[in-house]
């Protein structure tokens, strides 16, 4: 496959996420590049094989282009007048880092189910507060369950 198309395809997927908050379908990518649906599917699979995005292979649909999620999650990022879904607690911070913008993040703590709002402004985390009134302030943690060397063994779990 043409290398230029591969990287233009990656860039198109990310730009589409940034503009619309959702991944482009195979049909949309085919139309954008003037290629067939089969060629666009091959492009997606090539990007998947290179870990540039993660496909739901049954549907040939983009599940993740980290930090963006193609499906709803517990990590909502409000930025640039839009609401994005992040794949995980790391990626909720990854979206304002990637877009280099301010953001308000609504997230849910695992197990305790506390709801939290974070604000990113001017390249800094300026606040985090629980939005359920019974919770008191605490130092939030992000847990990385498995070492880097095994992240790509099961990306959905990671």
């Amino acid at each position: 496959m043409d290398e230029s198309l591969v990287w233009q395809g990656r860039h198109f997927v990310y730009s589409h996420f940034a503009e619309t908050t959702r991944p482009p379908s195979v049909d949309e990518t085919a139309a954008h590049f003037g290629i067939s649906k089969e060629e666009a599917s091959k492009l997606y699979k090539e990007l998947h094989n290179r870990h540039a995005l993660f496909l739901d292979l049954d549907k040939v649909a983009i599940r993740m282009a980290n930090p963006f999620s193609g499906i709803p999650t517990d990590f909502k990022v409000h930025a640039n007048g839009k609401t994005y879904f992040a794949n995980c607690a790391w990626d909720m911070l990854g979206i304002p880092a990637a877009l280099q913008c301010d953001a308000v993040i609504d997230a849910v703590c695992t197990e305790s189910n506390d709801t939290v709002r974070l604000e990113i402004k001017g390249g800094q985390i300026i606040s985090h507060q629980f939005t359920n009134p019974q919770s008191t302030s605490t130092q939030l943690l992000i847990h990385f369950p498995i070492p880097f060397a095994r992240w790509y063994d099961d990306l959905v779990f990671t």
Partner: protein
Amino acid sequence: MLLFRSEEWVDVWCKRNKLERGEMLSLQQVWELSKLWYGNRMSLDYHGRSMEQVAEVFRQAGLMSKFWYV
């Protein structure tokens, strides 16, 4: 990677999923890592990273334990 309100809740999750505890980072640590990891993700010129580049990102983020070995 999941968000927790305290270490105790991490342990509850690990026990329920029959997993050892991994690494716990503060929001600030993950924010610094995010800027290094995702800062150029929207660029047409971003073509992924070599293992050496991944190791350098972790080093710059101060993540030096065996957990972060590439």
